[in-house]
């Protein structure tokens, strides 16, 4: 059984360490917050201007002035702070955030990441993703291994407009976990989702990779 989205984000949560400052991208990466191990202190940064993001508010306590980067209503913690967008990205660009978890349309063997537009079809904009991959110490991508058409999203070379060059450290898909190491050395498959075979991963992956798994 390949991993579900929840399994993938739970796996991503295992990369968290006590005391980390973490930025979670919109969409699937947001779910990583549900898997922070009890007793571990992780501070979530929201690039629209908040450190110490709390859970969704109780019904009736939602505040239009308090949203995350996905524009979802959230709550504050005793430890929270607010700041403007320039300050927020100073903290991101300046290397003060330990970890970023992002979604992707394509990840290439050389560590390139594409996640903001499909020319002529879909355009959402890069938001803060280009700044995050340029400044955060470690970048983890969580994505489905293949497109709906079955085409591999772990590619030899990105065909979509890039978000960053040589920026991905670790890739978690529904099939397994790959060390990308920003394109330094070969892509290495280090974990398989339960029940997924190496042959299946080989058949469904465009990029070359090495592995010690059998």
């Amino acid at each position, binding site marked *: 059984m390949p991993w579900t989205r929840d399994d993938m984000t739970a796996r991503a949560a295992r990369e968290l360490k006590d005391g980390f400052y973490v930025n979670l991208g919109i969409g699937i990466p947001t779910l990583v917050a549900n898997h922070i191990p009890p007793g571990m202190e992780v501070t979530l940064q929201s690039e629209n201007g908040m450190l110490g993001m709390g859970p969704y508010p109780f019904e009736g306590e939602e505040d239009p002035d308090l949203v995350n980067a996905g524009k979802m209503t959230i709550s504050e913690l005793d430890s929270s702070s607010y700041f403007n967008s320039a300050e*927020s990205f100073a903290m991101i660009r300046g290397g003060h955030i330990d970890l970023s978890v992002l979604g992707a349309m394509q990840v290439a063997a050389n560590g390139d990441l594409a996640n903001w537009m499909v020319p002529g079809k879909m355009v959402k904009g890069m938001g803060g993703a280009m700044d995050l991959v*340029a400044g955060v110490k470690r970048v983890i991508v969580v994505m489905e291994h293949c497109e709906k058409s079955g085409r591999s999203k772990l590619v030899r070379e990105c065909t979509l407009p*890039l978000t960053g060059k040589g920026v991905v450290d670790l890739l978690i898909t529904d099939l397994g976990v790959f060390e990308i190491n920003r394109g330094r050395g070969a892509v290495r498959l280090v974990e398989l989702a339960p029940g997924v075979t190496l042959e299946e991963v080989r058949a469904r992956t465009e990029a070359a990779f090495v592995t010690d798994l059998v």
Partner: protein
Amino acid sequence: MATKIQSDAASALSGLLFDGMTVMAGGFGLCGIPENLILAIRESGVKDLTVVSNNCGVDGFGLGLLLENGQIRKMISSYVGENELFERLYIEGRLEVEFTPQGTLAERIRAGGAGIPAFYTRTGVGTVVAEGKETREFDGETYLMERALKADISIVKAWKGDAEGNLIYRKTARNFNPMMATAGRVCVAEVEHLVPTGTLDKDMIHTPGVYVHRILQGPAYEKRIERLTTRPRSEKASA
């Protein structure tokens, strides 16, 4: 000194608007947007606008209203994912868009207001954002030169303000508003509460009054929520 206080949004914008101008509008999504000033710009009918704003509202609210009314020629933004009309106009080539990474956008505006003509950043190196831009190596890393942004007018929204133009924002509604207040040739601020001078905590002012030329208290704020997410009251643990 003439008073900065204006009776309403239309009079606050009087004499400032012209076709082809550049407008900076604060807010992140629909959070912290100058609702009343956007409505007044729509009513004015001014067109061919270049609008600098992180997003472009949604269909039917915020800057989406100016888009629907055909008043915007170009957007300088980082993310427009919540606006179908925007996506369609852009793909059809009827709207010019300068996509700018969010942090670069914030810093370009900050630089514009701070008298810094350009700066270098790693953000966007090796992407389409770098096309046509100067690069330079510092300590073995490649950086991209980004130019400052200024505007003919900036419209911002704060929580509280006074006659001097001192502003305090609330929670994540602060976002781009403070930088934009500094980067408009004229800054018009709307506030939820215009309070007597002397009642704001002077240590807690986010935007000092020097940046704000005109100020008004909005008659009402819809403060529409873009994505309502809550947890049930029975739940004790965090969601």
